[in-house]
């Protein structure tokens, strides 16, 4: 279960000059505006975590940042150029996305699904090479899915399946990773293991952007935290600088206590609930 640094290093792409920012974008589905005039900068080499209540527009923002949804106003810049002006495969070589939910084709095996992550690196006459094979092995090793490789994806447990999807994004070997709730379905040990893997990837020079619902994990692992509500950014910065009782109440309408995490000294959020209210 241990993750060796050697493996992680293979994961890094040689030029870590990726840079992603949104310039006053308006994102909407048909006529429903989700975010208006939103500007966001993903710091170079950061592990950025986005938090916020359900339906506040986190997934929508990731879709805009990864060119899945074209902003009706403003633009998303990738390495200084409008992301829309790139060839779609070029974007896919720089930026990988783990959507919040995915469906696997019927009857596909784990290794074959992970192999789909190599698509942006392939073409009609170069459909499968040594490099593809190495990337797939490496991604499956990192996510501990190698022993599942010949199983059918539809016959896996929810958590196993989630790790396979993560492996597929890792096989894409992009310097930028956008992860929408990567830890859903995972038990606590696998959650921490995956977050540690992301931390290692980040320390090797990759830029990560993840949506997380667990505030304590967000505060512990994020180097840059973005708190959203109703499609707007309420606060952003280092977790230890921005996570306060007021912020959590403003964003979630939840009373809580913020104490220091005894292990990492990052903010630890303890919800009060009814018990806490009664005491006061």
């Amino acid at each position, binding site marked *: 279960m241990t993750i060796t640094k050697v493996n992680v290093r293979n994961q890094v792409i040689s030029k870590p000059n990726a840079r992603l920012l949104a310039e006053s974008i308006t994102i909407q589905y048909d006529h429903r505006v989700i975010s208006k005039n939103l500007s966001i900068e993903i710091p170079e080499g950061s592990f950025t975590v986005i938090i916020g209540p359900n339906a506040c527009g986190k997934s929508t923002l990731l879709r805009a940042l*990864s060119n*899945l949804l074209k902003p009706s106003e403003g633009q998303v810049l990738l390495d200084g150029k409008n992301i829309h002006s790139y060839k*779609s495969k070029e974007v896919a070589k720089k930026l*990988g996305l783990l959507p919040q939910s995915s*469906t696997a084709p019927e*009857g596909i095996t784990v290794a074959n699904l992970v192999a*789909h992550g190599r698509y942006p690196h392939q073409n009609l*006459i170069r*459909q499968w090479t040594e490099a593809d094979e190495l990337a797939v092995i490496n991604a499956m090793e990192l996510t501990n899915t190698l022993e599942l490789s010949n199983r059918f994806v539809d016959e896996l447990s929810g958590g196993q399946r989630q790790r396979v999807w993560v492996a597929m994004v890792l096989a894409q070997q992009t310097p930028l990773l956008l992860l929408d709730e990567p830890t859903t379905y995972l038990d606590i040990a696998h959650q921490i293991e995956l977050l540690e893997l992301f931390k290692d990837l980040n320390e090797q020079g990759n830029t990560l952007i993840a949506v997380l619902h667990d505030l304590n994990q967000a505060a512990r692992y994020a180097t840059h935290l973005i708190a959203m509500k109703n499609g707007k950014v309420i606060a952003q910065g280092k977790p230890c600088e921005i996570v306060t009782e007021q912020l959590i109440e403003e964003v979630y309408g939840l009373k809580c206590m913020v104490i220091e995490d005894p292990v990492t000294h990052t903010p630890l959020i303890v919800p009060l609930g009814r018990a806490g209210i009664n005491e006061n």
Partner: protein
Amino acid sequence: MQRINFGRKYLQLNGPLKMRLDVRNATITAIFLAVIVAISVFALMVGSLKLSIDEVFSALFGQTSGFKRTIVVNWRLPRVIVAIIFGAGLAVSGSIFQSITKNPLGSPDVIGFSSGSYTGVLFVLLVLGSNSFSSVAIGSLIGGFATALIIYLLAFQGGTHGFRLIIVGIAMSTILGSINSMLLLQSKTEVALSAAAWGVGSLNGIDWEHGLPAVFLVIVFLLLAVVMNRPLREMELGEDTAKSHGVRINRTQGLLIIIAVSLTASATAVMGPVTFVALAAPQIALRFTKTTGSFAPTAVIGSFLLLGADVLAQRIIPGTILPVGVVTLSIGGLYLVWLLFRQARTAS
């Protein structure tokens, strides 16, 4: 040596084409190809004048001349080649539509593209009074595309819902069926009779002159389908994932629909609507290969079905040559009923 256990056997090719060859798919394709060759030789031997295997081969390779060569090369061979190529075209067309609609019922013969092509053909034959191949082919293509467009507009509002497309398609198919009858009833009998013969789909009387242009078209569109196969397989992962892998969804889907409609329309222009092959071949291939992912097994199974059905149609009632469409319609009807029942049961 294969270092990853994919759960399937692959053969790595490292020539100019670098790919993993799926061993099971390749084996099944090879077996069906052998069967197709055997049926072809049989089809070249039998008929009102029976020939021996030696006579067939010497006619094919030019050692014989005269009447026997004419029979084999000019009369029987075009029919065999056309059946093989059209069968592959229909099957791949069905496979594309079933993959886009994510539904085994989403095939051009069920959702009305074949009927639409036939309407186009009837319009050219009966209303415009032309019967050259090019005008019939254009009529067939326009009919197919117009139907595709109408179904698209009616069914694709608010997302691509496979089942909705199929319901609208079946309705379209029925409406077009009555339009076709109307066109036939309103025309002069002798023209209508020859046009009506198209309605069941037939390879009777096919020759090189009428078959070759369509065979050429179908081969071109089959090659295009092979090029588009990889993005199509990415789309099976869902739109978001496909897009994040660099697939341009709208362009890919549009091109695939054009390819699939053209495959069906080119074949329909020559032999009329033939059902069942597009519907069943991809599903039979899936049973054999246990995977989607390659058109090759689907294509050879389509060839096998159409060629087999045509040989059967010529032999099943001694002394009479049935249109191949009658045979596929009977088998296909039963298969469709079974498929609908099974889907209705899983849906409820």
